[in-house]
């Protein structure tokens, strides 16, 4: 038996493939970018840039750590032997490949550089802005992909109070609890099927 101690977060942070419903992830659509070592000069960068198109160059340290970017404009008028360190634009914040495409789209889209957990450059992911740039979706997530904790805690408190009112100090069986919560969800306007699905997601007892 083996214990993968760093778990799913580590796996996804390195852009490794996953299965499930939450994708696609930036790691699924990273494209390579042209790079140039930070120890090189403006002349080297011009050579690289001639084949790199409009995206410019990402300047990297040893081990592939992204430190900055340069484009044709940044090199204009600079002597050939100028160190790239003097002309690069510091790289903006990078994102992990485990970030969902949807969360970037809902945040306005863009072309962020994607790096693994150790800061090594994986490439660039271009994401168009979502048309519907609203705050929250129907599952209580805001546009950054974080859970609406306040809403969740309020709902949880309300449910716990209702359970206490119904059962008092008596501890309900799993089946009784499930039946009570099901009845409550239906009374709040959910369909019986929705209520079943929600209770199953929450692993409330008695669902098999």
């Amino acid at each position, binding site marked *: *038996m083996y214990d993968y101690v760093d778990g799913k977060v580590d796996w996804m942070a390195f852009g490794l493939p996953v299965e499930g419903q939450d994708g696609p992830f930036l790691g699924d659509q990273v494209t390579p970018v042209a790079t140039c070592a930070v120890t090189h000069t403006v002349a080297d960068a011009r050579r690289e840039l001639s084949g790199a198109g409009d995206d410019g160059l990402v300047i990297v340290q040893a081990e592939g750590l992204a430190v900055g970017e340069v484009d044709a404009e940044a090199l204009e008028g600079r002597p050939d032997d100028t160190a790239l360190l003097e002309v690069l634009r510091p790289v903006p914040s990078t994102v992990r490949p485990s970030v969902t495409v949807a969360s970037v789209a809902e945040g306005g889209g863009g072309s962020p550089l994607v790096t693994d957990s150790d800061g090594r450059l994986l490439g660039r992911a271009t994401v168009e802005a979502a048309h519907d740039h609203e705050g929250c979706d129907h599952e209580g997530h805001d546009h950054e992909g974080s859970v609406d904790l306040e809403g969740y805690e309020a709902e949880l408190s309300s449910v716990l109070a209702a359970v206490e009112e119904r059962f008092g100090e008596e501890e309900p069986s799993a089946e009784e609890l499930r039946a009570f919560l099901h009845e409550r969800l239906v009374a709040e306007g959910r369909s019986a099927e929705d209520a079943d699905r929600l209770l199953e997601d929450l692993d409330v007892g008695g669902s098999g």
Partner: protein
Amino acid sequence: MFESIGRIRVRQLLDHGAQVVEVLERQQFRLAHLPGAVHLPAWELTRARADELDRDRPVVVYCFDNL
């Protein structure tokens, strides 16, 4: 009994037919899991559920992170 391993070793084991088990809650598993992982929540780790695994193949268990 458990050997702690990292990502590279996990990939090697997967290449050699290891079984991967996610022990998180159902919703977490549905959202994203390692390729081919089976879902066996920590609170369901009974002998009967463990018997669903192939004893002749390595088993890699994982959670969310190392915290």
